[in-house]
């Protein structure tokens, strides 16, 4: 079976473009799906932003930058990625501490580090550094991890998550925590431990509730009953549900979504852009978009399975699963399935750093996959 697969791959690499992709350590299917999402995303953004061409141009530039980051990271050998993991992690934690002390506040949250030339969110770096650090810890050890190792990994995850949640940036903290947890889960954490932790969730949830900021608590409460505050916190959810629901099966047509075009939908070009897709392209548009996302995740998991060492498998798996969390949390919040958490719709929402980080992650994934040694013939 392996032979057949390799054989068919070999046949496909006969084409010149495939050879080029191979040389550049890029994965054709993944690249195609990601590009498709990004291009559709630009079309949606043009409509959602109220035909703002300047904004569209900036997003295009960012996507270009993100592609460069992806291609660059795909060239780095997994060996170096593994060796650098603890140092990148340490640097990230250091930067987070600096942000907490001297960071730039924006919209009530202290997330930015002003480096003079560019403003930089260290939390974005941690999105990749945390799973890599966790995988690094597990790489040489027999799996599944023992309790001592689990405790160590908990600290590795919770320190940056705590710092980011304090900024406060609940969405990013959640994403980073999950990316670390995914490494642990993929490393074969025993089922009974998982069950025990799941049993503890309500307790942990109650404890965490106390640490949440007022506005974060309100978001959860509003999620549970959006009608309770239709003009305040519930407005976002109600308006986005109206947008999606009124789109129906076929949608109102590109640039014809009244909810989006007439600004009833808040954050329409950033966190709530999924509702614009639902309003203007209907259920069919959303299903197409979700299908593309599922393909990316499926392809990512498949590539992870094909990886040959523990570090590569765990990092690749975590990157794929975290990407899913992005999609699910965003789509779920916009459609009213999960609470409103500030998570962008990957590759579609307007916003810079997260797109670069995502594509950088896929660059790492491609590197891990393409630098395999061929086994067998």
């Amino acid at each position, binding site marked *: 079976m392996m032979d057949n697969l390799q054989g068919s791959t070999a046949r496909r690499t006969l084409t010149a473009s495939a050879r080029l992709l191979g040389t550049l350590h890029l994965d054709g299917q993944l690249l195609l799906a990601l590009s498709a999402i990004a291009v559709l995303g630009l079309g949606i953004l043009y409509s959602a932003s109220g035909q703002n061409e300047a904004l569209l141009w900036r997003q295009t530039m960012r996507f270009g930058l993100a592609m460069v980051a992806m291609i660059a990271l795909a060239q780095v050998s997994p060996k170096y990625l593994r060796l650098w993991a603890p140092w990148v992690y340490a640097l990230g934690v250091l930067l987070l501490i600096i942000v907490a002390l001297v960071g730039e506040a924006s919209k009530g949250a202290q997330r930015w580090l002003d480096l003079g030339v560019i403003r930089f969110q260290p939390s974005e770096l941690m999105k990749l550094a945390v799973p890599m650090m966790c995988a690094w810890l597990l790489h040489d050890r027999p799996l599944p991890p023992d309790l001592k190792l689990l405790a160590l990994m908990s600290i590795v995850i919770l320190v940056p998550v705590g710092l980011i949640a304090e900024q406060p940036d609940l969405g990013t903290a959640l994403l980073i925590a999950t990316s670390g947890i995914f490494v642990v889960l993929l490393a074969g954490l025993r089922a009974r431990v998982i069950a025990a932790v799941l049993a503890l969730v309500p307790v942990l949830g109650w404890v965490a509730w106390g640490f949440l900021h007022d506005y974060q608590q309100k978001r959860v409460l509003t999620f549970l009953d959006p009608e309770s505050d239709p003009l305040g916190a519930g407005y976002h959810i109600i308006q986005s549900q109206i947008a999606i629901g009124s789109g129906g099966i076929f949608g109102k047509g590109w640039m014809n979504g009244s*909810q989006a075009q*007439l600004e009833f939908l808040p954050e329409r070009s950033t966190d709530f852009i999924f509702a614009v897709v639902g309003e203007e392209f209907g259920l069919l548009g959303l299903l197409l978009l979700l299908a593309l996302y599922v393909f990316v995740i499926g392809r990512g998991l498949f590539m992870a399975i094909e990886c040959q060492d523990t570090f590569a498998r765990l990092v690749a798996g975590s990157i794929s699963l975290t990407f899913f969390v992005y999609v699910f949390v965003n789509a779920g919040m916009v459609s009213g399935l999960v609470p409103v958490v500030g998570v962008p719709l990957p590759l579609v929402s307007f916003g810079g750093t997260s797109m670069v980080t995502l594509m950088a992650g896929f660059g790492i994934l491609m590197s891990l996959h393409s630098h395999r040694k061929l086994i067998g013939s």
Partner: protein
Amino acid sequence: MISPVRIKDHWAEQRMFMRRAIAAGIVILALVIALVVKLVQLQVVRHQYYAELSQGNRVRIEPLPPNRGLILTRAGEVLAENLPAYQLELTPEQVPNVNEALWRLVDLRLVEPDDIERLTRLVRSRRIFESVPIRLQLSDEEVARFAVHRHEFPGIDIRTRLTRHYPLGDVGVHALGYVGAISEQDLKRIDESEYAGTTLIGKVGVESSFEKQVHGTTGFRQVLVNAQGRPVEGEAALRANLATRPPVSGNDLILSLDVRAQRAAEEALRGLRGAVVAIDPNNGDVLAFASTPGFDPNLFARGLTTAEYKALQDDIDRPMFNRALRGTYPPGSTIKPVIALAALESHSIDPGQTRFCRGFFTLPGSRHRYRDWRPEGHGWMNLQESLAQSCDTYFYNVAQVLGIDRMSSYLSKFGLGQPTGIDVEGEKPGLVPSRDWKQKAFSQPGEQVWFPGDTVIIGIGQGYLLATPLQLAHMATLLANRGHSFEPRFVTALRDPSTGEMHKIEPEPSPSVGVDDAAVWQRVVNGMVGVTSPPRGTARGSAAGAPYQIAGKTGTAQVFTVGQTEKYDEKQIAERLRDHALFIAFAPAEAPRIALSVLVENGRSGSGTAAPVARKILDAYLLEPTS
């Protein structure tokens, strides 16, 4: 026990990872399915619900106010029209500090300081993006003054709107009435949705009573709005299916007023406090309806400042008081024809029999003298002569013979003591006293009894008897038509402005007097003709030279009771305590085309003051205009 050293088993780990990855894939699929189910629920199952919510979000209904109907005379003169006017409007959200901006407008003399509070309240009561009119009609000079400073007033601008204009100014103001800004009181009596977008409403007179016909039907237009409620253009597809219902203009009103008669009436009353009502006895059409002093109704359409309104209200001559419709006065001798008719019809007197007038009348067994207006007396009097010379003594006697019950009955048959049924609101019923009425009106048992003396003075239209000039004019129409007449009316037809189609309003007959004896009527009319005829008719001077025959009756009504031993010395009596002057008439006497009443408050004498007024109106109406 020492735990065994664990060795990394790459093959097992790879298999384990694959199992975990597949498990993750299953979980992902499950969550995606949950998401899809949610989306199907929103977009398929509840689509209709959300589509309606979205429609409600984006569409706002904007009212389209109708054009108010014109008011015209039958001859086509325009009495009320709609003209574009410059209006100063303020859009609250664009004005940084409304109060401060208003004060700066005060500095430009565009707003009165007294109005600041009212305007501030008005601005606050509206939505921030809706423009509020703060001045209704600006003069060209004010427009120019504002234009120079316009850049200093963001959010305040001049807009052209249709407002009401009365081209003849105060001519017929008490008939027409006027429009003004809709007040809280008005809101109680109208359907607010019908007045969305309308700023003016009829306040009194025809403008108010025919409000329903003249206002029209408000249309609407659905406009696309954004989340702030501001109208936006939007893409064509967003604007699809926006409904529009055009407004329907109000009906034009065709009034019965005759501008020449109306102008003659107002001209004749200039400088006096008084009223004239002239009616065509053949259909009830009101030809002239004046109450002086009047006022310019355009002031109200423009919006009075607080000070201007107060000045009108406080004017001692009460220009806003509709004397013709709502002023009740003792009718004096003008009712003598009715009393004469009652006496003839009931055979209480012999018209040919003469009685001697010595200047006063006494009831049997009483020494109280009921004085004649002519202290020396009229000498021998028959019915005809007593009407012509307005002999009070004769009518004191007639009244005593008739008694209060019959007099009340006849006065009521001539429309006194009850509304005439004119087609505008606010009419006063006046008062025809009776035994029953006195019983109810007074609380002291001693005052509740009807005394013979009460009867005697009713015979000359004094005492408790009160009538409006409108009622007296209506009474004159009944005399003119020998007992038949119509309810007075201003509006003779409605005209649909879009088709030009006329909807004539049929005259409404008044209850007939019920006296059919032509000879009786002829005697009364002859008596009234005698009033305007030589040698002794009280109004012969005023009627002199008229190419048509006038049947009239003068009246002089006491405002002030003169003591038994005093003499009425008008020089010593304050101007406002002098007698009211009255006159009723119809002409030509045998084929009447006009019947009228004239009242001049404190005019001293019906023959001297009121009758000349009447002559001017009769001439204006009956004589062909000299071209």
